[in-house]
């Protein structure tokens, strides 16, 4: 991008000419209609393969959080689509997203999930790379002739890596807009999500919670912007919470998901570029802390906070010890849910890993972060598994070839949507506008000419 400084791009060797990303020869206008989508987009292996090149790579994709690699040398191995990467902070503090692939014969050079290293040495034949990707050594170099140009054998990379307030994104597409432009209406909401906290940041410190389901990755995205499912999919959680709360509104959690939720002040939004948002905040009562299902340690830790900082400050801190009641989805793979960072990791057309990163925050007493750990376990134990069971059963039902369409018509024709001056569209909470919106972006990425560079 002209004039743009990017992490990892300064002082890079001259770029290769971009290659064109292959386009799958399908009638995408047939497969993705205005308010329905063909089952093939969830089941077809060729569509999946193409998504892994074009959607995961052709646009900005979430890679990792800067707090996971705080010090020079720190690294995490992640994937861009199915491509193994090492996301690493070099000695100068700059972040690189290197393809985890030796330039000799293709072996991965880093075999662990996280760590710290100044260099990566390939375990197969010993080629050695500095953590900024530079090839620094190989044994028996006289085995290579005079035309052997080592400067062309640095680890390839995701050439465009940018961070927005700690969230690291990457793309291999030289024509992608700047990250800030790509984020569109999601940017302001990322700000809201972070600005709840005194230091305006989150820290990923805990081990991740990894959940696998036998279904397509887009089923998770459909659910993330779905304000229609909670009373049904989460019926057991809502019933259990009501039973155990014994008639009280305190500690019942999610009690606003009953009756006609389209009459509630909750809403969903299409933010541009496939990003979406569902907002529960206007419906929460009596308060975020008061309504949360009681967690282990609730009483003692609330008392300790009140004793430590006084009631007024404690009240404010307790509200940020529990989830944000925001569901912000940055297409294609980053979901901010409650307090957690969820990453969609496709594995196969009918297999997906959802990795949940619990977060802590700085500038608060320890008690707040201990409470955050217990509160971030609750929905993953008692809510999410039922959604994933429904994803798996969708994948099974979608295996029937003769029944072709997935229906996204809710509120498409009820005249209840509003568009603002930024182009953000807001609808009632059961409106399926989010799915219709992200599929527009999906179709664009699957069909337009896309180019890629890897250094």
């Amino acid at each position, binding site marked *: 991008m002209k004039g743009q400084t990017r992490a990892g791009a300064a002082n890079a060797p001259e770029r290769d000419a971009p290659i064109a990303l292959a386009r799958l020869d399908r009638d995408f206008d047939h497969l993705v209609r205005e308010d329905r989508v063909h089952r093939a987009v969830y089941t077809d292996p060729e569509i999946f393969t193409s998504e892994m090149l074009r959607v995961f790579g052709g646009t900005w994709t979430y890679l990792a959080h800067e707090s996971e690699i705080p010090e020079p040398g720190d690294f995490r191995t992640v994937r861009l689509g199915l491509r193994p990467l090492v996301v690493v902070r070099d000695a100068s503090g700059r972040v690189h997203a290197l393809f985890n692939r030796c330039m000799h014969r293709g072996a991965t050079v880093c075999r662990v999930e996280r760590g710290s290293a100044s260099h990566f040495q390939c375990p197969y034949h010993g080629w050695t790379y500095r953590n900024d990707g530079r090839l620094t050594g190989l044994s028996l170099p006289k085995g290579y002739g005079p035309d052997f140009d080592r400067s062309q054998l640095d680890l390839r990379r995701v050439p465009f890596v940018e961070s927005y307030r700690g969230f690291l994104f990457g793309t291999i597409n030289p024509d992608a807009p700047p990250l800030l432009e790509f984020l569109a209406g999601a940017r302001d909401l990322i700000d809201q999500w972070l600005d709840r906290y005194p230091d305006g940041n989150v820290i990923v410190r805990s081990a991740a919670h990894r959940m696998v389901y036998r279904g397509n990755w887009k089923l998770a995205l459909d659910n993330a912007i779905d304000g229609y499912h909670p009373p049904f999919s989460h019926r057991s959680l809502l019933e259990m919470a009501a039973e155990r709360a*014994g008639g009280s509104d305190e500690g019942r959690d999610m009690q606003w998901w009953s009756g006609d939720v389209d009459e509630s002040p909750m809403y969903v939004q299409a933010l541009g570029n496939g990003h979406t948002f569902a907002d529960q905040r206007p419906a929460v009562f009596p308060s975020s802390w008061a309504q949360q299902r009681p967690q*282990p340690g609730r009483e003692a*830790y609330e008392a300790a906070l009140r004793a430590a900082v006084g009631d007024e400050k404690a009240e404010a801190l307790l509200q940020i010890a529990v989830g944000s009641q925001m569901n912000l989805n940055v297409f294609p793979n980053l979901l901010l849910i409650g307090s957690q960072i969820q990453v969609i990791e496709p594995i196969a057309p009918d297999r997906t890993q959802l990795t949940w990163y619990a977060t802590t925050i700085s500038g608060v007493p320890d008690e707040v972060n201990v409470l955050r750990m217990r509160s971030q*376990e609750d929905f993953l134990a008692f809510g999410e598994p039922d959604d994933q069971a429904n994803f798996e059963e969708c994948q099974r039902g979608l295996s029937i070839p003769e029944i072709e369409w997935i229906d996204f018509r809710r509120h498409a024709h009820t005249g209840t949507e509003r568009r603002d001056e930024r182009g953000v569209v807001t609808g009632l909470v059961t409106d399926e506008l989010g799915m219709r919106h992200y599929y527009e972006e999906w179709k664009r990425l699957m069909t337009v000419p896309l180019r890629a560079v890897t250094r």
Partner: protein
Amino acid sequence: MTRLDRLRELAPVTSSPVTADFYDRLIGEAGSFAEEGEPVDAETERECVRLVLREARLLDQARFEDWLRLFTADAVYWIPHVAGGGDPRREVSLAFDDVRRLGDRVARLRTGSAWSQVPASRTCHQLTNLEAWRGLRAGTVRVRSTFVVHESRGAVERSLPGWCGHLLRVEDASWRIVLKQVNLLTADLGLENMSLVL
């Protein structure tokens, strides 16, 4: 008495034993499973092993309320992501339940609308490699075991291996569970549908 009343008796909703001191003690107790301790007498070992095996059978029989009765009021059911538990003040776990949240877990399963348990899991909790040692505190016993939970749920069949640490003490003339720490072999890796009781 309704099912819910019975559950409230077994797993009260009013308070939690978890405090800052509680976490300190728990981390110490959990850490002690890494090392052999002093042996216990044969009769104590027999009784403690009997309790652990009974617990496994109750789960396989889906007798969750009877299973809850085996826990002390200050017990924790803990399935960490970090081998050996790490520090639960800094880490989320697959499960970190005091008896209150354990009661919630059972209550949810009993609603009949927990779709991740429709159809319900059928399990075989297989325990081997049982060792019993004195606990850190007087009157407690540590039992360490290797387990495999074989599960059949709808069309899916799988086995979940790992090691388990039980901390036991006597209450009302029976050995009861103070801590059950389930250390899955694949605790930090991708896991499908973990709605079953391990």
